[in-house]
C-alpha cells in the first residue's frame, strides 16, 4: 500500500512539475515582465492610437465571424445529427479540417481565391482588407460550435420534438421552444471557444491582411509588429492584454462546462 501511495505522490509531483515548467512559469513571466516597471507605461502602451485601433478591429472581426459561425454551427449540427444523407463522413471531416490545417495554408488558400489573379474578383477589396480577414477568421474558428452542439443534440434525442410535432407544433416552433433551450449551454460553450480563436488568430489573418498599421492590424498582428520594431515592452503589454482575454475565456469555460455537461 505504501508503494502505491508513493507512486501516486511521485506521479502527482511529476505532472505538476511538468505543468509548472511548461505552462505556469512562462505565463507568469510574461505578466512579470509586462508590469515590472509599473502600470502606467503598460496603460500608455495599450492606449496608443494604433493599439486602440487594433483592439476595435479585432472586436469588429470577432463580432462578424462569431455570429456567422454560431448560426452555421447550429444548422450543421442539426443536419449532422438528425439528417440522413450520404456523405455524412465527408461533411464531418470537412468540418474538422480547419483544426488540422496550418493557418498559413488557410491564409494562402484565401489569397489564391480572392487575391490578384485569383478565382473570384468581387467589386470590393477582399485581400489586404477587412473582408479577407473576416473570411480567414471564419475559416479557422468554424468547427467549435458544431463540435460542441453535436454531442448535446445526440444526448437529448428527438423524442420531445416528435411529441411537439404530434401536438401540432411547426418545426420552427419545435426548434425555438424545445431544441434551442436544450442545446443553449452547448452553444454558449462553443461561442466562447469561437470567440477566443477569433481574437487570437494570427497566421491566416497575417497573410490576408497585408499588415497595414492603423488599417488592417489586429491585436495579434500588433504584437508581432512591435516585436519586429524592437519595442519589446510594447509587445509584452499587448500580449498581456491578450493574456487577460485568454484568462477571461478560461473562466467562462469553467463556469459553462458543468451546465453544458448537465444538458
Amino acid at each position: 500500500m505504501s508503494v502505491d501511495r508513493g507512486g501516486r505522490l511521485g506521479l502527482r509531483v511529476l505532472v505538476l512539475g511538468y505543468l509548472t515548467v511548461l505552462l505556469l512559469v512562462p505565463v507568469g513571466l510574461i505578466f512579470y515582465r509586462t508590469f515590472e516597471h509599473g502600470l502606467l507605461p503598460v496603460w500608455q502602451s495599450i492606449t496608443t492610437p494604433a493599439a486602440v485601433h487594433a483592439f476595435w478591429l479585432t472586436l469588429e472581426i470577432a463580432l462578424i465571424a462569431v455570429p456567422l459561425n454560431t448560426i452555421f454551427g447550429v444548422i450543421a449540427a442539426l443536419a449532422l445529427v438528425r439528417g440522413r444523407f450520404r456523405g455524412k463522413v465527408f461533411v464531418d471531416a470537412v468540418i474538422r479540417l480547419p483544426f488540422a490545417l496550418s493557418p498559413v495554408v488557410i491564409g494562402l488558400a484565401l489569397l489564391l481565391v480572392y487575391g490578384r489573379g485569383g478565382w473570384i474578383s468581387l467589386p470590393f477589396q477582399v485581400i489586404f482588407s477587412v473582408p479577407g480577414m473576416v473570411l480567414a477568421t471564419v475559416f479557422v474558428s468554424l468547427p467549435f460550435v458544431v463540435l460542441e452542439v453535436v454531442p448535446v443534440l445526440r444526448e437529448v434525442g428527438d423524442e420531445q420534438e416528435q411529441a411537439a410535432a404530434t401536438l401540432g407544433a411547426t418545426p420552427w416552433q419545435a426548434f425555438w421552444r424545445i431544441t434551442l433551450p436544450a442545446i443553449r449551454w452547448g452553444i454558449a460553450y462553443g461561442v466562447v471557444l469561437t470567440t477566443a480563436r477569433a481574437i487570437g488568430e494570427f497566421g491566416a489573418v497575417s497573410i490576408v491582411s497585408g499588415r497595414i498599421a492603423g488599417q488592417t492590424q489586429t491585436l495579434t498582428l500588433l504584437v508581432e509588429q512591435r516585436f519586429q520594431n524592437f519595442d519589446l515592452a510594447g509587445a509584452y503589454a499587448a500580449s498581456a492584454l491578450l493574456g487577460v482575454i485568454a484568462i477571461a475565456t478560461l473562466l467562462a469555460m469553467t463556469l459553462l462546462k458543468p451546465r453544458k455537461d448537465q444538458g
Partner: protein
Amino acid sequence: MRGSPLPSEAVTARAARRVPRVTTGGASGLGLGVATLWLSVIVLIPLAALVARSTDGGLDTFWSAVTSRQAVAALKLSLWTSLAVAAVNAVAGTATAWVLVRDRFRGKGVINALIDLPFALPTIVVGIILLALVGPTSPVGLHAIATTWAILMALLFVTLPFVVRSVQPVVQELDTEMEEAAASLGASSITIFRRVVLPNLVPAILSGAAMSFARAVGEFGSVVLVAGNIPFHTQLASVYIFGQVESDDPIGAAAVSVVLLGISLVVLLAIGVLGRWGSRHER
C-alpha cells in the same frame, strides 16, 4: 473522442427509433443545403483553389517546388518535431489526465481549468512568452532562440491540452472494479496499469496524439518568432510557406501547402478510424 455513446443514450436512441418519425424532409433538407453551401464557400472553394493553382506553372514546377532541398528540409523538420511532440504528449498527457481524475489535492480545479490555457492563448503570445523565457533577456540564463529546443517547447506548449482532454473522460468512465480485482489477485500497480487500464485508454491516447501531431505540423504563430527560420536548420514548413508568400511566390507556396493539406487529411482520416475503434472498445 467525444460523443461516445453512453449506455443510457443507446437506450434512448433505440426507443426513438421505434417511434414513427413525424418530421423529416423539408426542414432538415434546407439545413443540410445551408450547411453545405456555407462549407463550400468558406472551406472547399479556397482549398480547391489551393490545390488547382499549385500546378499553375505546370506539374514540373509543382514537383520541383515540393522537392527543392529547402522545402524537403523544412517538411522533414516539421514532421519529426511534430512526431516527437506527439510522443511526449501521449505520455505526459495520459499522466496528467490520470492525476486530474484519480488523484486528490488542493487546487486541482484550478490546474484542470489551466490545462485549456494553450487553447485560449493566441499563438503569437506564446511566441512572445517563449522569447521572454529563453531569449536574450532570459531570467534563468537559457538561450535557446533559433534552436530545435525552442521549436519543441513552443509545440509542446500549444498542443498540451489534446491528449489530456481526450483521455480524461475515458479515465472518468473506467470501472475501478477491474483494477481492484486485479490487485486482489496480486497484480502490481504497474501490471494493473499495463494490462488492465492502458488497453482501454489506447484509442483516446492515439487520437489525442494524432490531433497534437496535426496541430504541430502546421503550427505557425508560436514558432515564427523563436525558431529563427534558418534554412536547413530551424526552418519549419509553415514558416517556409509564409516566406514564399512574402517573397511573392504564392504558387510555389501552394505546392508545399498541398503536402501539408495531404498530411492533415490523412491524420483526420486516422482519427475517424480511431474514433470508431474506440467506441467499439466500449461495447
